[in-house]
């Protein structure tokens, strides 16, 4: 009982004292989605390009993004301006570096999800649209993409939920997001409860994400 009470108190404390840190986590999440979702589509097109140079470059990019730790990518993006260009790293760049690293990393994953979705649409859909006189762009945006969206919602939900938890990696370059702050508090109070409370925060966040995505899936349930 004591433990629950102390966790609850910790959560109230975090909610009031760390609302700013919570907002930072939410911001990282939303901005990453905002950039990575469309960027992923571009990457998917590159990956499916008939031009061997574009296709190879994009394949290498995806391999690096998926093959190395996101935490390392964060650190590289954060220090690159200094080590590569000798630029001074400003305080505000910290947050920007997180958004850049997360966006290009998640774009690679989203791109492969898009590609799977696009390639799963039967060729007959393209042929029917072609015969009816739709242009390539009209075919893609009116006929193919809506069907792709329906098919890729479950894997996109997966990726989005992973992103919520991955925002805690911003800790690696000391961005004051939820996990960083909870860790600080935990150290100063010599208690594990702030971390547990952060865990509850992530859980609720993800519960919301899953709930919203399920709504989207339901909304597209009217056809098979």
């Amino acid at each position, binding site marked *: 009982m004591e433990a629950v009470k102390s966790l609850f108190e910790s959560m109230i404390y975090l909610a009031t004292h760390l609302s700013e840190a919570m907002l930072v986590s939410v911001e990282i999440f939303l901005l990453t989605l905002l950039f990575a979702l469309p960027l992923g589509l571009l990457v998917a097109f590159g990956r499916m390009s008939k031009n061997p140079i574009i296709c190879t470059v994009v394949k290498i990019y995806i391999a690096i993004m998926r093959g190395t730790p996101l935490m390392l990518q964060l650190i590289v993006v954060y220090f690159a301006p200094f080590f590569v260009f000798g630029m001074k790293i400003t305080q505000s760049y910290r947050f920007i570096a997180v958004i850049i690293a997360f966006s290009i990393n998640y774009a690679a994953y989203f791109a492969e999800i898009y590609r799977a979705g696009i390639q799963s649409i*039967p060729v*007959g*859909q393209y*042929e*029917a649209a*072609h*015969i*009816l*006189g*739709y242009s390539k762009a*009209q075919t893609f945006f*009116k*006929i193919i993409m*809506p*069907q792709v969206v*329906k098919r890729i919602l479950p894997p996109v939900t997966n990726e989005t939920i992973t992103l919520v938890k991955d925002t805690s990696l911003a800790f690696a370059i000391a961005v004051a997001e939820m996990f960083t702050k909870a860790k600080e508090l935990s150290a100063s109070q010599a208690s594990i409860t702030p971390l547990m409370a952060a865990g509850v925060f992530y859980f609720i966040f993800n519960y919301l994400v899953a709930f919203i995505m399920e709504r989207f899936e339901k909304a597209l349930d*009217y*056809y*098979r």
Partner: protein
Amino acid sequence: MGEILFEVTNMSKSFGELEVIRDVSLAVEKGEVVSIIGPSGSGKSTLLRCATMLEKMDSGELAFLGEKAAYMGASGIEYADKKALKKIRSYYGLVFQNFNLFPHYSVLKNVIDAPMTVDGLSKEEAVARAMEILDRLGLADKVDSYPCELSGGQQQRVSIARALALKPQVLFFDEPTSALDPELTGEVLKVIKQLAAEHMTMIIVTHEMQFAKELSDRIVFIEGGVIVAEGSPDEIFASDNSRVREFIGKFTS
């Protein structure tokens, strides 16, 4: 002789080493119904795919309403430019074996979307046209349904309606009943018969021998990528060509 709406001359097509169509020529007049029959792998579907430009032929000429879509240039086959092809494409429609309806669109939207998107019709015009066609094909009560809620026969009728909504001059059918249960083929064949009575120009690849016999002005028998026999249904069904007799015998006995 009526106006020739569709004409292919000396069409050849290979997939790698495999020669699928060899030097096939065929002209179809306005109002004519031509059935293309032949065993599996004879090249009849490829002929249709080349005729509708889903597939590019290797050599030959292709014209709709006298306008050349493909012709032999100095260095082999040449297709007309994009703009000309877009216009030519509006002259014909194609009904697929497995319908290829757009699953995320309702029946009505399937039928009105191309006229609105491609021909720039207003919604009122497109809906009026669609309702008239759907009514004629006995689908008036299905306008708000989605393809997944329909039987195969109904889906195929919707796909015919979708093709008709663009007012094609020539309508191609690629084995329109092959994906249907035998009990559902009747309703689709009835609709095609109805169109024939309205003098729609149609080129039909089919396995339905009895249907081809009843409906066609002309039957073309293809085997091994060449036209083996061609003539009125009576001529074909009374053919003394052993291959034609054998093939027809299999279906009618």
